[in-house]
């Protein structure tokens, strides 16, 4: 099992060359402004090679205004010895003609499940039978049609989130010869084209090209519910349109979430189990306050890795 760390900036990537990780990933799953330029990636790849590490470039979901730039970068890095993760169907479709040296992974903006994305999954599937519950916990990539199609485009790896219910249902993905990589500490709840952090700071995204403001998570806790329009009466009278109300029950269900740039996340607190079929465990440095915390997680993952390797050897002997 490899350990991969996702970093926020190219500078941060250089500071992690001494760490015991196999892959350092730059770019971002949500935001184009966090994707480094070609020259920066090329230099980083050279440095990583000297340190016996691989570099991964993560491509986000891409609004059309940025599509040509992202496509051009994908073409340029095609011959570099880098790993690539794609989170946009348009880039994925065009990757077929680019023929990336190492193929590509499908990121969790495209690969997800109801269980991993919804903070109130239990509420949504209440009343459904076990078979349906299992299906909705499983990755949306658990589809023969979909896997066969993305294979023709060059995909060879699928990201999942490290939850037992998701991990246990990856047989089909593995059977179809895809590798499975798992996000360890967080689940992506939502992607927005609009940046909540910029809205909160009252800054325009046009400044993002120069300075990345969202290098840390913001924690949000539900306060007031947004109620929708009441039914129009015969006299066309409305006492109030939309309005906010307090709701203790919703507050209880709406678990605290994290905003990082234009991505919304929940903490994965159910990751304390061992699963041997994950080929890469991904951690995101943005969720850790300092390097000490990161090192602790690396240690923990190294133990998981040893357990996983032991169980594989045991299986082979047995």
């Amino acid at each position, binding site marked *: 099992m490899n350990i991969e760390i996702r970093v926020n900036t190219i500078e941060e990537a250089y500071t992690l060359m001494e760490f015991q990780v196999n892959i350092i990933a730059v770019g971002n799953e949500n935001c184009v402004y966090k994707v480094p330029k070609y020259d920066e990636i090329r230099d980083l790849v050279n440095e990583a090679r000297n340190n016996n590490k691989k570099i991964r470039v993560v491509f986000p979901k891409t609004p059309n*205004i940025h599509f040509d730039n992202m496509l051009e970068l994908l073409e340029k890095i095609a011959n570099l010895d880098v790993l690539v993760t794609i989170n946009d169907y348009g880039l994925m479709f065009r990757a077929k003609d680019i023929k990336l040296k190492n193929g590509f992974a499908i990121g969790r903006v495209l690969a997800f499940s109801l269980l991993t994305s919804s903070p109130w999954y239990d509420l949504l599937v209440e009343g459904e039978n076990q078979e349906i519950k299992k299906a909705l916990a499983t990755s949306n990539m658990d589809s023969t049609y979909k896997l066969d199609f993305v294979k023709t485009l060059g995909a060879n790896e699928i990201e999942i989130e490290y939850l037992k219910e998701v991990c246990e249902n990856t047989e089909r993905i593995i059977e179809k010869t895809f590798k499975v990589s798992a996000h360890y500490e967080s689940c992506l709840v939502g992607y927005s084209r609009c940046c909540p952090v910029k809205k909160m700071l009252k800054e325009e995204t046009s400044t993002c090209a120069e300075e990345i403001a969202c290098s840390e*998570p913001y924690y949000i806790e539900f*306060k007031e519910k*947004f109620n929708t329009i009441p039914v129009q009466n015969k006299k066309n009278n409305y006492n109030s*349109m939309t309005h906010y109300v307090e709701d203790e029950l919703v507050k209880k269900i709406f678990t605290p979430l994290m905003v990082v740039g234009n991505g919304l996340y929940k903490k994965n607190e159910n990751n304390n189990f061992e699963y041997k079929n994950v080929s890469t465990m991904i951690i995101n440095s943005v969720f850790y306050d300092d390097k000490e915390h990161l090192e602790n997680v690396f240690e923990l993952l190294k133990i998981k890795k040893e357990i996983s390797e032991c169980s594989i050897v045991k299986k082979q002997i047995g």
Partner: protein
Amino acid sequence: MIVKAPVNSLRSAELQCKYGAKEIYLGLRSDKLNRLSFSGRGSIKVDKKGSNSNIESGEELNKIISHCHEKGVSVALAANCPSLPDAMKDGYEEYINEVIELGVDSIIVGDLASLILVRKIIPKDFYVTASVFMESYNIGVVQMLKHLGANEVYIPHHLKYDEIEKICDEGLNIGVFANYGCSFSNGRCGLIHRWGEEIDMGIPCRAKFDISSKNGSIKDAYPILDFGLDCCLCTIKKLMDFNIHSLKLIDRATPVEQVLPFTKVYSTAIKMFQEGKNLDEIKAMAFKTVPWWENQFCATKNCRYMDNCYSSYYI
């Protein structure tokens, strides 16, 4: 350009046809699922008349189809569950086959697996629409959907004119949303509501939140996630110039009385633009038809596709 309106009962279909919809869309309940459905919405009670967000029976659907066809209105089946793992494939296939037999005119799909499956089991010339769940933010996605056999694509809420124009050049019919909409990308949002849950979550992305960082509290009771856009009246002319095929109204989980004002305003606006009327005349019509329109939408600049109160935060 036509108005495509949501329907959740025979009565709502009759009203939508009367108020100017040229196409309606609906979902059908499936006995394979309880509160969830194979359409993009769960099954919930919508009004005191007993309407459900998904049509209760094939018999009622049959009556709706007959009425709509009599009025020259086409019927689209929502089969856009956002994910279709293999374990749900057989139930979904049954759902599609049942409604094809009943005579719907098109099918809306919401996932790559559904699109590929539907194209395998329905007649070649049958019209298939890729829903907003496909997150068609760029021409590459539209090219992929065309390659897989989609005829029409609904594009996301937060796109700009220039982007829409380029997407329209790809040779597929393009649909846009007219009223209200989500803050997060449909298809990649876990703040799911009105899916059959028993608790009213409100509109979760528009809620107010207390915000903090590792250094402590930053803001209290702030709608940090709210990027909902509500109106596209001022953009219709330009969208017509781009050859946009349809304006879609949401949502099936709302009493029809709440949707009808939009059906009336947008269908009248299209007609007036076609007759050469200007925007001021159209706005006057809207404000007269719906007295709260100006205050609710214009004053807040919650405008779609053009510069709006959120466009400076677009990535």
